[in-house]
């Protein structure tokens, strides 16, 4: 049976770059464990050999011809940027590994 400790929930949040407060962890942990309990049933489903379904529909792939279309104007591209500089999106410094 799957279950996650508060610390494991915090680790997941760190992996998903999701800031969470202690208070939220208090709400999230039991809610998450409740869902984990409810998905346990899936293990009983008689499907060991079946092919997995990935897509929502039956449509086959539609490939695009290699044609150049107009890109968006630079100012439109940058219009929602929280911060920009020199026509680039600016972020706090990336700490190199």
């Amino acid at each position, binding site marked *: 049976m799957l279950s996650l400790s508060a610390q494991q929930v915090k680790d997941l949040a760190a*992996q998903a*770059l999701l800031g969470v407060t202690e208070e939220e962890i208090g709400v999230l942990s039991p809610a998450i464990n409740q869902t984990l309990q409810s998905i346990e049933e899936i293990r009983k489903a008689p499907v060991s050999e079946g092919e*997995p379904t*990935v*897509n*929502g*529909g039956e*449509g*086959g*792939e*539609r*490939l*695009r*011809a*290699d*044609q*150049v*279309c*107009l*890109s*968006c104007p*630079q100012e439109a*591209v*940058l219009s929602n940027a929280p911060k920009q*500089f*020199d*026509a*680039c*999106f*600016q*972020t*706090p*410094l*990336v700490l*190199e*590994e």
Partner: protein
Amino acid sequence: MNYETVIGLEVHVQLKTKSKLWCGCATTFGAAPNSQVCPVCLGLPGSLPVLNQKAVELGVRTGLALNCTIAVCCRFDRKQYFYPDLPKGYQITQFHQPLGRGGWVEVPFAAGQRRVGITEIHLEEEAGRTAHFPPEADNPGYSLVDYNRSGLPLLEIVTAPELRSPEEARTMLETLKVLLEELEVTDGKMEEGSLRCDANLSVHRPGEPLGKRVELKNLNSFRAMEAALAFEAGRQGVLLTNGAPLDREEARTWNEAKRKTVFMRFKEQATDYRYFPEPDLPPVSIDGQWVERLAAGLPELPEARRGRYLREFRLPADDALLLSKNKAAAVFFEAVLGFYNGEAKTVSNWMLGDVTRLLKEEKIGFTDLKFGPEDLAALLSFLDRNEISGKIAKIVLAEMFQTGTPPAAIIHARGLFQINDPQAIKALVLETLAANGEAVRAYKSGKEKAVAFLVGDVMRKSKGRVNPELLDRILKFELAVDEIKDIGLD
């Protein structure tokens, strides 16, 4: 101590398409920042990827050339990690069902030719480009992101860990680069990043299991790659020799300034990428007949060409290798043969000798030549017909190279035709003999070397145009006649 090195490569090839992998934005290099961007390659909420057919075609062509089994149906997956240049928070790549698997390529290593396995090839999208500005006195530093590169089509080629030295790794990459350029699937410009390489390297004692491997990143030139691998092999070798071999896999990067590899992270610390099948893209079924047509349309690749040169033209092994691995040279070579009735070896000699020397002096390639293959063929034909001498041919070639003028025009204009008329040569010889009594006498007194002086004199007068063989025979004959006269036989 004795140890062996094992290397495998991951080569990222930017495919030569007009538009990006999922959208119609142009792929031109060097545009203004964020000017070749649309909702799709900016990963805006609500945008969806639509696969570029040409990228699949180029991928299949490459797979065929690398002798891979092309998937009947391939899929895309999401590789999830956070980085500012990755606009969706995941990279669309192929993990579970790649485009091709299980290929090989023949590589002409210094120690001899050998097959190297290709584990798989897969399509994926390129990320944007990030520039970092470290902290200064009055600001905490920042990074800038340009998404022009985001969504360019990449083909990743993963080789089997079958390379045994940094030199072999370099030869492998060079071989791949030539092959990809011949296929016309990429520009292969390492300096623009359209060809990039990561490498995995481990060392072990002969007969013992493989050591822990290190992934080397940022190998942005052949030189960097060879240097980084050599450094890393040495480093791991020392560790092994000291009885403290690596016990964890790690990722390192090549620092060009310090000329050493630098630790990045241990592999087990590496993020779990949480790959899962891309729900936005249906599976791509690859039509077998289409693949067959692509296979039929593949150009002859260096390896096949080399074999043909050995078989068909009976070229020496070195000549066949040198001519076949350079497409421009090969095209030129075969074009010359189309105009030329002589020996293929003659063409090869001239191309790999004098022509290559001239090209190297100017730092240009066969495609930059001012004269055409028909001109070289004409020059060699003049030579074969004894209409010019080898020496003259070199002079003519130099002028062809400089000006592009056809050889016949040069020879005519400068009067460089070889004098093959015995009467004309005889006249020149007699003239020389008459004017050089001293040398004639020296010859007659047994100084054979005097002949060289007399030949030189005739050549000087004729500007080197006299057929040397005829000159030799006529000169010796006339000297003999002269001698007979002397003893008064007639």
